[in-house]
């Protein structure tokens, strides 16, 4: 019984030790370095093309292609949390004690000794405390004519490193929770469209989408004007979404993420209009029997065909063309460029592209635990500040008749001073 208790205690004291924490931090650092040199999250072929077979195998087996989400990386973070948790718990009571306790002059540095002829009154004690930058002080009587005065400053800063560690712990835990419960989807459309945001209770109506250009042709901003509505149509709010200014509602955030081109398309079978829709670049439309498929491969707003092949001169709609492909039972039957309004004939089908315009693309995320992360980060910064810039200071004065002995700690380096000729 004793033995297991002992082993258990030893295990706990290892798990809460700073040494274990630093080893974990070091390991996370080393893995991070490895991960920064191996491109992350590519497909298997990428690694085969860039590394020797053995290296590729090692990368894939050790999950170094996605190291930051690998099992062992997460386990290390988990262990770090455990370490910080145990360490913070076990240190708290002694820190609190330290904040409250009366400083023991034996642990302090001896700063000065004053002898005065006339008997020392209260004013002269106050003067000494002031000299060292303390405003208030306490007094304890002791036997043999000895009186102990003491004062403490910034005692709360003993909590500094505790706040740092708790802050980091909260940040990791809540961020991890946020990642585990992370929800993401996307929604896109052209002005005038209303789209359901899949997996949520909302829909958005895109009222307008603009790209602002500067004089030199670079993009200044992408701005979408949208209405957010409940799925059943109840209006929630209207907002402008642009890069760096997501729309937020009930934990969801809508980011202006991308843009691309879309056109109207009309599909006829033997003169009869069978489909009319908005057709987005890089998507395809299939007939109801899944036999015929038309793919909108690429859009050229300012098309030019010359001896160098197809090029796009600008992003202005000067000469818009669509590159499309037609597939029948999975086989490519045709591939060509078409102008707007041009009728593309294929067997009994006719396709007509028209009205090219930009669509806007939003990423929609919901991440929980943000408040916890925020509090954690603020505690971290507060703790650092206390630790580095609000060092606790103590001053103890022992009065013995007309002798004053002064003890203190943490005199700043300014007081030490660098005297060039000191040695």
């Amino acid at each position, binding site marked *: 019984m004793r033995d297991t208790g002992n082993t258990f205690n030893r295990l706990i004291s290892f798990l809460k030790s700073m040494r274990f924490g*630093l080893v974990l931090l070091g390991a996370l650092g080393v893995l991070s370095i490895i991960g920064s040199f191996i491109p992350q999250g590519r497909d298997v072929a990428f690694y085969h093309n860039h590394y020797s077979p053995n290296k590729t195998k090692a990368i894939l087996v050790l999950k170094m292609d996605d190291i930051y989400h690998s099992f062992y990386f997460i386990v290390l973070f988990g262990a770090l949390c455990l370490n910080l948790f145990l360490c913070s718990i076990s240190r708290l009571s002694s820190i609190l004690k330290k904040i409250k306790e009366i400083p023991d002059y034996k642990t302090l540095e001896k700063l000065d000794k004053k002898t005065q002829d006339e008997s020392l009154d209260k004013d002269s004690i106050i003067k000494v405390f002031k000299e060292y930058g303390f405003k208030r002080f306490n007094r304890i009587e002791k036997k043999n004519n000895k009186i102990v005065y003491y004062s403490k400053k910034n005692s709360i800063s003993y909590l500094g490193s505790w706040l740092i560690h708790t802050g980091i712990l909260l940040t990791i835990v809540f*961020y991890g929770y946020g990642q585990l419960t992370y929800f993401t989807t996307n929604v896109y459309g052209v002005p005038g469209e209303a789209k359901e945001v899949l997996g949520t209770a909302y829909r958005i109506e895109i009222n307008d989408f603009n790209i602002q250009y*500067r004089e030199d042709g670079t993009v200044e901003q992408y701005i979408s004007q949208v209405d957010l509505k409940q799925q059943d149509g109840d209006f929630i709010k209207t907002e402008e979404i642009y890069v760096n200014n997501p729309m937020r509602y009930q934990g969801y955030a809508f980011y202006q993420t991308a843009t691309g081109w879309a056109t109207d398309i009309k599909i006829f079978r033997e003169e009869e209009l069978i489909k009319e829709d908005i057709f987005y670049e890089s998507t395809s439309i299939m007939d109801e029997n899944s036999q015929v498929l038309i793919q909108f491969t690429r859009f050229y707003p300012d098309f030019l065909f010359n001896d160098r092949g197809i090029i796009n001169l600008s992003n202005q709609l000067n000469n818009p063309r669509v590159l499309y492909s037609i597939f029948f039972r999975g086989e490519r039957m045709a591939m060509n460029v078409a102008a707007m309004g041009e009728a593309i004939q294929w067997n009994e089908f006719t396709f007509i592209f028209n009205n090219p315009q930009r669509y806007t693309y939003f990423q929609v995320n919901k991440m929980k635990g943000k408040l916890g992360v925020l509090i954690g980060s603020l505690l971290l910064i507060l703790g650092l500040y206390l630790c580095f810039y609000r060092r606790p200071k103590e001053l103890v004065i022992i009065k013995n008749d007309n002798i004053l002995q002064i003890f203190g700690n943490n005199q700043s380096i300014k007081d*030490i001073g660098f005297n060039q000729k000191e040695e």
Partner: protein
Amino acid sequence: MLDEGHSFVATLVFYSLSMVCYFIFFMLRNEKFSSYGSLLVKVGILFHTIALSSRTVMASRLPLANQYEFATSFAWGIAISFVGFEWKYRFKALGTFVTPIILLVGFYAALQTRDIRPLMPALQSNWITIHVSTAIFSYGAFAIACGISIMFLIRDRFQEDGFIKEYIPNFEILDMISYRAIALGFIMLTVVIISGAIWAEKAWGRYWQWDPKETWSFITWIIYAIYLHVRLSKGWKNKKAAWFAILGFIAILFTYIGVNTLLVGYHSYA
């Protein structure tokens, strides 16, 4: 206002002259030269500030957006931190070790293209201002710690040399200042990382995605965190701590220069 290009060149000239003076001071052991060095660095800062201000006016935004702008601001941050530390702790040999770092970053800036390019939409945020300006001072403070640690090692190497003894403070003080500088740098680096995460969420919808720049700032943060701990627990206030501070600064330089040139990521435009 003076044109940016000329002021920038003047800046480099004055910084270089300052470094030469600090070197002469160290080699010839003539105290006058350290005062010249100190004066020249301040003149350099003056021109540097003019260059940065005129660029700010021309671009109608703070010069914190691309490799050149960040490098020149970074050099400015080191120079300002240097003057601050020199003034506060008043020792002359610091310049001999810090001016080369200022110049290293300054000449790196000079190699970059100086075109003023407008900000892409993701960079138009107030958070980037906080993010990058704290980065400048964080890196500046770490540069000072690196310079001081080099002094520490030199003093350690030439223990018996009278001049070194006279002009390089004792180990305790060197260690203390280096610690102070790292503490300042660390708190700033923490703000850099947090403000960067907040900005990334607004711009890209993700707080943290382990892109190489983020990863390297995390690695740097870990290095300095380990430094702070071993210093406390093992009392590493000696050569080992000095090597750690130098290692940390190498990681900073890698985060800043290496990541952009060797690794690819979202941050590669900055």
